[in-house]
C-alpha cells in the first residue's frame, strides 16, 4: 500500500483540531466517521484508499468499516470528481417542469454524459434525485449552491461562466484522469496537487 509514498495524505492542522472537537460529540468514535469523511473529502477532493486508511487510523476504526460506510453514501466520492459537480434533479416534480431539457443543455455545453467527468477535471455531470425544492422546479445543485427555476438558457449562461472560472482554478485537489491513469492509479499516490 501507500504508507511509504512521499505524499501519504495527512490531515491539515485545522482539520486535526476539528476532528478532536467532533470526537467530543459522540460517545463512540465511529459516530464521528461521516463528519470526518466530509472533512477528508473537502481536503483531499475524494476518498481514495490512502485517505480512507488515514481516516481509519485517526478514528481507530478498521479500514473495512470506513470503506463500508463510504461506499454506502452517494455524496462521498469514491473516485475523482470535477471541480464543479453539476447535479440536475430529474425526479417527478422536476420532470414535470422540464428537467429533460435542462439535462440536454448540460450535455450540449459540457460535452459529457450524466455520470461522466470532463477530461480537464472541471465538470462532473450527474442526474440526481429530488432536491426537495419542488415548488421552484426545475432545480439543480452545483457543489454547495442551489439553483432554482432553471431554464436551458439560464443554465447555458451559468455553465459558460463556470468554464471561464474553472479554467483559472483548475481541477480539485486529488484530481486524476482515470482514463489516463488506468486501474488502481491511486495506489501509487503521486497525484495530489494540494
Amino acid at each position, binding site marked *: 500500500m501507500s504508507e511509504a509514498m512521499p505524499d501519504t495524505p495527512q490531515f491539515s492542522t485545522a482539520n486535526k483540531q476539528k476532528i478532536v472537537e467532533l470526537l467530543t460529540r459522540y460517545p463512540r468514535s*465511529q459516530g464521528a466517521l*461521516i463528519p470526518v469523511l466530509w472533512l477528508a473529502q473537502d481536503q483531499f477532493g475524494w476518498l481514495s484508499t490512502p485517505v480512507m486508511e488515514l481516516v481509519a487510523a485517526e478514528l481507530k476504526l478498521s479500514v473495512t468499516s470506513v470503506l463500508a460506510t463510504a461506499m454506502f453514501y*452517494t455524496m462521498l466520492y469514491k473516485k475523482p470528481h470535477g471541480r464543479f459537480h453539476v447535479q440536475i434533479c430529474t425526479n*417527478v416534480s422536476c420532470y414535470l417542469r422540464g428537467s429533460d431539457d435542462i439535462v440536454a443543455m448540460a450535455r450540449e455545453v459540457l460535452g459529457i454524459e450524466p455520470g461522466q467527468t470532463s477530461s480537464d477535471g472541471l465538470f462532473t455531470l450527474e442526474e440526481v434525485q429530488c432536491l426537495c425544492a419542488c415548488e421552484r422546479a426545475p432545480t439543480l445543485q452545483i457543489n454547495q449552491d442551489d439553483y432554482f427555476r432553471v431554464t436551458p438558457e439560464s443554465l447555458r449562461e451559468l455553465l459558460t461562466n463556470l468554464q471561464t472560472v474553472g479554467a483559472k482554478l483548475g481541477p480539485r485537489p486529488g484530481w486524476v484522469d482515470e482514463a489516463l491513469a488506468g486501474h488502481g492509479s491511486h495506489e501509487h499516490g503521486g497525484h495530489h496537487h494540494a
Partner: protein
Amino acid sequence: MPEHRLLLRRHLGVDFTKLENYLKHGGFKMWAKALELGPDGVTAEVKASGLRGRGGAGFPTGMKWGFLPKDNRPRYLVVNADEGEPGTFKDRYFLEEDPFRQLEGILLGAYAINAHTCYIYIRGEYWNSKNVTEDAIQQLYKANWLGKNIQGSGFDLDVYVHSGAGAYICGEETALIESIEGKPGMPRLKPPFPANIGVFSMPTIVNNTETLAAVPVILEMGAQAWSDLGSPRNGGTKLVGVAGHVKNPGLFEVPMGTPMREIIYELGGGILDDREILAVIPGGSSCPFLTKDEIDVAMDFDALKTKGSMLGTACITVIAEGTDLIKVMGRVAKFYQHESCGQCTPCRQGTGWLHAIAQKLDQGAAGEEAIDLLIDACNQIDGNTICAHGEAAAWPIRSIAKKFRPQLEAAIRARLAAA
C-alpha cells in the same frame, strides 16, 4: 383562502435567522412555561394536543415520548431533518428560514424526555440548511439557550448538526440512527424500538423537524386550542406544499383536514393552462396516486387512508392531463431502486424489476402484459421487507398500474406503433 398561519411566517418579512428577531417575536417564552409544567407536564400537554408526527407516519408524538423506559440510562433526542421524500419541501423552511422555532421545540422536547444531547440529522444536500441551523445553534450557545445550566434552570443540553451524505433511506428512523453511529444506513429490525435501544444503544426519541417546531406553538396556545383547529384525531395546522403542474406552486399552512381540492385550486392557483388533472400524489412519491375523481378528500392522516393513499409529508404533486405516465412511473421506479439499501431481497431485486419493466415500456419494448407483471412484482415486495421502503416503491407503482391502466395502455400502443 383556507390558510391559517401559526408556523409559517414568511409574510412577516422578518429575518428569523437572527436570535434577537426570534426573541422579539415571542421566541423562547415557552421555556418558563415548561419549567412551570415540569417534564411530565410538557409531555401531558403534547399528548393532550393529539399532535401526530409530521414526518409522514402520523404517530402521536406525546405517546412516543411516553414509551421511554423509566431508567437511568442517558437518553437522546434525534431530529429527523433528512427531508428527501420526492415532492416534499416543508422542513427546509424551518431549517433555512426559521431555525429557532425547531430549536425551541428541541429544548422543550429534550426537557420533557430528560435528554441532554440532541442530534439534528440534516440531509447532505441541504448545505444552506446545515449552515443556517449550525449558525443558529452557535447563537444559542452564546446566549446560554444551549449548553450548561440553560438560563439558570439547571438543565443542560447540547445540540449538534449531523450531516447525512446522500441516502434517502436514512429518513427511516432506524437507518438514521445507524447513520449517526457512522454505519451504512440500513434499517434495523424492530423490536427493539428506538425508545428502548436507539442511537448508541441508548433510549432515543426520533422526531421530525415540523413536529418539534409545533411544540412551542402548542404550549403557547394550549393543547385544546391546537386540537380544535384540525379535524377529529388530526389536530392543529399542517404545512402543505403544492408543486407540479399548478399555476402558483408553493408552501402553505392550513388546518389539518382542509379539502385537497381547495389547496390545489385556491392556494395552488389551479392547473397550468387550465388543463384537467390526470393524477395527484398527496404527500410525496411513496403515496399511492389519486385520480382526478378522488381529490375531494380532507388533507389529514385518516381521510387519505380511506382513499387508499396517505397524507405522507402533505406536499402535493399535481400531474396534468397530457402527461406521459410511463415516464412518471419510470422516475418513481428509478428512485426507489437507487435508494434501496439492498439488505432485503424483495426490495433490492423487486425495485430493480420495477425500474427495468418501466424502462422496457418506455422504450416500446414491452406490451400491455407488462402492466400485470408490474402489479405482480409490487405484490411480491409488499409486506416482505424490514422497513417501509419496499412499500414506498410498490404502492405508488401499483396504484398507477391499476388506476391508470387505460392511459398506460394508450401510451404503450403509441410506442409500439412508432417502433
